[in-house]
């Protein structure tokens, strides 16, 4: 009997061994089919998990070989687990609308990020140190098909204009209600996005920036007459205009163009010429010419451009030298009117389907198949459920309204999660979308362990922290006051942003002079002086006097000292992931601005560029005092500070600090600046003569206008964001319509850059707002004597041009903007957060474009139920210190 038992046991062991051996061999062959390498009994790609993407559906959704990989309800491929995993967050607001075509609030992405998808997406590279762009809804990378559409959609017969790309779609795309997504669905969505009745807020995503789909703008604006400020676009100079037989000039395209006295102009800080003339009259303008000019104006206050009207305009703006303009500035007073004819979508918009799974996109801006094309196809997304979307349109009141994306019933997504609970201003729950294509894909195995994403609105930081410590949240964004408690926590993570915050000042003498005439002194009886801010050394002194480290410590402990306009997170070459600040050009720009360009190298103060940069604090009180003293001498010499004022001692340099909001940062920040600068001028001639006032609250989106039109003297903690991968376009913020100092004409500021052995000169505006944006500019070649040789060279540095050239121009432009001393780097934008003990991030280091991995890569040590038990075992509160 015992022998029989032993035989049976042996047989069983042998059977198990054979089965295991068979499974390993089977695994190896399956993995090899997928191109994976097999090593020492384990797949090097799949690691411990056996993958059989073709086999899982054969036996109840379970891998026939190893049994792993369950397809729940016959629908999707998920991790083999028995419990639920929920990722819980507590933001201070919950989205109220998340229509992809119209949303304006950042919180809308709480839903859109999980319920949406894109043609392409970011993923980790092989060693998880950087990113790659891979197809998501698309099945392959775009294919250039320009030749097939020559002569259509603006593509020239010789294929030199516009580009066409074919994008193939996966064939299992579905909405979260099971409806199929085909190429036609994309086209319908595009048509709804560009609906001219709607004027959707995000319609410009597909014609305004890098992604310029042919015909999209014309279709969206059909039937409209759009008046455009020529000074803002810089589109037409006087010599570009074409004179008609009637003596009236038009644009080369035939658009009507006018001199305007009634339209607001960016050149005049948003005000019309008439407002300036009414305010200042003959002090700045030729009034006789103005009277004659307005006599020619139509009812809209616009004058057709003729030789006569141009002469009159010249008479208005050049009659008084104090206005400081010439005939060359006349184009800033033009507006042109574009009439968009009624158009059909088909044949107009370069975005169409050729079959169920193939889309063709025609780009107006000849974008090559590079990172920028794929990036735009990742982000500029617009897919909606056309049927549901149309149900939500209401035009019965005479106004187009659309409440798509405002409740569960009025929204259908297509991402990895589906909206299942929505209570406005309270709670959102998203659960797995069983129809999402990713769950059926081999590459996704092991990702998306999270079953539910839960957002609960919590407005108070203290309550959020309490919830986190009780294990009810998976992360907590630390506040300045929390830093001391958690600075040594093992669960603390820092996240840098692409933004940099600045100190921006008004350097314009005229507006400063006008403001000082009406300013009330802080000290009764004092004469108010503001024009000192026009002196470069004074502004530099204010910057050097600012102890940035102390400023950050007091107001934003997670932030670092900003040493340049562009942050360390900005990517210069997205194809390689190289950050701009890591390039030699990026480093040189910093060194040039801080005066350390020749202070590094063997035998010098710093051994390397990095050492020199590391030494920069931006704080030099002694240097600041010297600069203040120089500024004082200049102010006295110019007559800003008169002998009478000095004798009486009754004068003050009054600085009006702009306050974007009532927030603590701006209140305390202003106090800090005042303290710092009061201290800095001690021992100089300005001691006791610098006073400060805070402006009224300027509004969180409109504050910039107040500096642009000179209503406040300076702003701090302001900047631009959102261009991590495209600093080249972002530089336009410093020279285009969004710049903080539009009163410094960047067309009159020249910059020399050495390219291919030649020193080329063009205006700062041309380099930045034209060349880097893909327009060809004509540069003067500069000789050894520093003068133009007469030779001209064409330069273009758009998305399809040489990346090295783009970086070189970018760095030179950045340094030049900084040396104008109107805008100074102040602080980096960083945040710190605590991560829950039960969550594991994909990477410990922040990876550009992917962060720490996101919801797709988060792994959990415990299920929700296990976590609850664990918290209870710990006494209800966890220790993260």
């Amino acid at each position: 009997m015992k022998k029989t038992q032993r035989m049976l046991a042996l047989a069983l062991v042998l059977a198990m061994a054979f089965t295991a051996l068979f499974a390993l061999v089977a695994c190896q062959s399956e993995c090899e089919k997928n191109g994976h390498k097999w090593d020492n009994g384990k797949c090097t790609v799949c690691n411990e998990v056996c993958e059989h993407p073709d086999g899982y559906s054969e036996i109840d959704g379970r891998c026939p070989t190893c049994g792993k990989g369950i397809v729940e309800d016959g629908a999707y491929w998920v991790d083999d687990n028995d419990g639920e995993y929920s990722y819980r967050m507590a933001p201070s607001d919950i989205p109220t609308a998340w229509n992809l075509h119209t949303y304006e609030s950042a919180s809308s992405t709480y839903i859109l990020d999980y319920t949406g998808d894109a043609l392409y997406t970011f993923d980790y590279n092989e060693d998880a140190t950087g990113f790659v762009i891979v197809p998501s809804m698309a099945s392959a990378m775009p294919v250039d098909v320009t030749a097939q559409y020559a002569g259509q959609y603006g593509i020239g017969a010789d294929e030199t204009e516009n580009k066409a790309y074919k994008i193939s779609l996966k064939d299992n795309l579905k909405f979260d209600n099971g409806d199929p997504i085909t190429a036609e669905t994309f086209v319908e969505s595009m048509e709804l996005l560009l609906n001219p009745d709607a004027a959707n807020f995000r319609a410009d995503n597909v014609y305004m920036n890098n992604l310029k789909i042919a015909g999209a703008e014309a279709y969206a604006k059909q039937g409209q007459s759009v008046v455009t400020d020529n000074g803002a676009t810089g589109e037409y100079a006087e010599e570009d205009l074409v004179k008609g037989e009637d003596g009236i000039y038009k644009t080369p395209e035939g658009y009507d163009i006018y001199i305007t006295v009634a339209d607001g102009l960016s050149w005049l800080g948003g005000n019309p010429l008439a407002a300036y003339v009414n305010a200042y009259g003959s002090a700045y303008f030729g009034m006789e010419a103005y009277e004659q000019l307005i006599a020619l104006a139509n009812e809209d206050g616009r004058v057709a451009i003729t030789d006569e009207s141009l002469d009159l305009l010249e008479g208005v703006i050049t009659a008084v030298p104090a206005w400081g303009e010439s005939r060359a500035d006349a184009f800033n007073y033009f507006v042109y009117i574009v009439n968009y004819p009624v158009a059909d979508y088909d044949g107009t918009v370069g975005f169409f389907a050729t079959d169920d799974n193939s889309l063709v996109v025609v780009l107006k801006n000849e974008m090559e198949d590079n990172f920028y094309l794929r990036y735009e196809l990742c982000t500029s997304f617009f897919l909606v459920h056309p049927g549901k979307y149309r149900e939500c349109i209401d035009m019965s009141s005479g106004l187009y309204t659309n409440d798509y994306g405002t409740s569960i019933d009025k929204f259908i997504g297509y991402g990895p999660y589906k909206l299942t609970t929505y209570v406005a201003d309270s709670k959102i729950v998203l659960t797995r979308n069983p129809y999402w294509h990713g769950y059926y894909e081999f590459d996704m195995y092991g990702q998306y362990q999270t079953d539910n994403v839960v957002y609960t609105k919590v407005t108070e930081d203290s309550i959020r922290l309490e919830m986190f410590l009780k294990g009810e949240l998976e992360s907590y964004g630390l506040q300045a006051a929390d830093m001391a408690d958690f600075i040594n926590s093992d669960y603390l993570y820092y996240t840098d942003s692409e933004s940099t915050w600045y100190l921006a000042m008004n350097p314009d003498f005229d507006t400063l002079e006008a403001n000082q005439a009406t300013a009330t002194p802080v000290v009764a009886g004092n004469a108010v002086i503001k024009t000192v801010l026009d002196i470069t050394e004074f502004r530099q002194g204010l910057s050097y006097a600012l102890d940035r480290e102390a400023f950050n410590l007091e107001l934003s402990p997670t932030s670092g000292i900003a040493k340049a306009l562009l942050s360390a997170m900005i990517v210069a070459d997205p194809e390689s992931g190289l950050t701009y600040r890591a390039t030699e050009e990026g480093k040189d720009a910093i060194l040039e601005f801080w005066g350390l360009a020749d202070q590094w190298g063997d035998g010098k103060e710093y051994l390397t560029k990095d050492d020199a940069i590391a030494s920069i604090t931006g704080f030099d009180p002694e240097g600041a005092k010297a600069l203040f003293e120089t500024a004082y001498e200049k102010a006295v010499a110019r007559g800003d500070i008169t002998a009478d004022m000095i004798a009486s001692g009754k004068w003050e340099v009054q600085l009006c600090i702009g306050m974007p909001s009532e927030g603590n940062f701006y209140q305390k920040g202003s106090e800090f600046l005042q303290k710092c600068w009061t201290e800095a001028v001690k021992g100089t001639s300005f001691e006791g003569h610098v006073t400060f006032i805070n402006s009224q609250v300027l509004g969180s989106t409109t504050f910039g206008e107040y500096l642009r039109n000179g209503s406040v003297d300076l702003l701090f903690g302001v900047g631009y964001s959102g261009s991590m991968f495209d600093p080249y376009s972002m530089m336009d913020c410093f020279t285009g319509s969004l710049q903080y100092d539009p009163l410094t004409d960047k067309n009159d500021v020249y910059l020399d850059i050495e390219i291919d052995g030649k020193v080329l000169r063009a205006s700062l505006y041309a380099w930045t707002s034209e060349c880097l944006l893909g327009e060809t500019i004509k540069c003067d070649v500069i000789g050894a004597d520093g003068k133009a040789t007469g030779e001209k060279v064409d330069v273009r540095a758009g998305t399809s041009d040489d990346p090295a050239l783009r970086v070189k121009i970018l760095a030179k432009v950045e340094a030049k903007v900084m040396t104008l001393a109107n805008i100074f780097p102040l602080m980096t934008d960083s945040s710190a957060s605590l991560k829950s003990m039960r969550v594991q991030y994909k990477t410990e280091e922040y990876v550009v474009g992917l962060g720490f991995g996101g919801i797709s890569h988060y792994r959990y040590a415990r299920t929700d139920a296990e976590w609850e038990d664990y918290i209870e075992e710990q006494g209800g509160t966890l220790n993260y210190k």
Partner: protein
Amino acid sequence: MYMFKYILKRIGLMLLTFMIIFTMCFVLVKLLPNRPADQFGKDKELIEMRREMLGYNKPIMEQYWIYLFGRTGYEIPLTDSNGNVQIDSTTGLPKTKMVFDESKIPEGVEGTKKTVGGIIRGYFGTSEALYLGRDVWEVFVEKVPYTVSLNLASILVSIPIGLALGIYAALKKNKWQDHVISTGVMIFVSVPSFIYAFLVQYLFYFKLGWFKPVVDATQGAFSWTFFSTAIPAILSMCFGTIAGFARYTRAELTEVLTSEFMLLARTKGLTKGQATLRHAMRNAMVPIFPMILGEFISIMSGSLIIENMFTIPGVGALYIGAIQAQPTPDYNFFMLLTGFYTFIGLAAGIVIDISYGIIDPRIRMGAR
């Protein structure tokens, strides 16, 4: 008859006052800066197109006229790009759109002249900022129950406790019980409710773990889930109201208890309890009852701080949110709330005044 005339007069005055306030608010809110700032990578022309459609470029009084009475235009069928008439899935009827410029009616289509919109037709407009694209009335109606539910619970708890404490303190005037209650009342009246809210949250959620930190509104405003999770919020709201009622009741009752008619009642042979209940309480309620009525009338006005702190999706933050909305104020929300609360406030004044006559027949409204 006097009363009837009085009520008619008050209603007439109320409507006049309402229209003045309503018009002033419309003009003032339209005078606020409303031009969006330039944004990086945004097409200003597109934003201008939408502003034109919204009528923001029209003169303010023309906008007001349209807001009140709507616009007259031509109704035509709403078609998709293939020319198919779209059907409203809820009504099954063809969808329509309005064209206000006759020349823009497509060829072959016959437009029906019609006036649409305007609050006289019950159309309060859609939100352009806070709840983008949603009908403002629908949002308001959706949120009011949460506020009503919270306030109602708070009042129902506050009134009996507040009155009881006030009566007890009055009866124990100048004794230690009165001093304890009065001191408590002073503290609770003086300290703002959000301080209690923090304390309640810290104690009952973080330390004791008895309640959730925020309210669960997923099951609706009158569900057990809502009430059970809203207890900390209700408590936070109650303290101040209880203290208010107690103080007022004590003061009124103390005064009445020392009146001569109370002495008469006692000399007639009534016990202290009988005299207090039948005579003192009734007289003391004359000013207290309108106060209670006022509390009930105001149950639709939300508490910005408490609703925010406990994540109650009520109307508390709507008003200020409508004004502070960026880039432009949410005009339609602002005007709806202005109209609603102005009306409630004015109507409450009439109701409270009339209630005096009902509680105490000696008070005759409108009588000379």
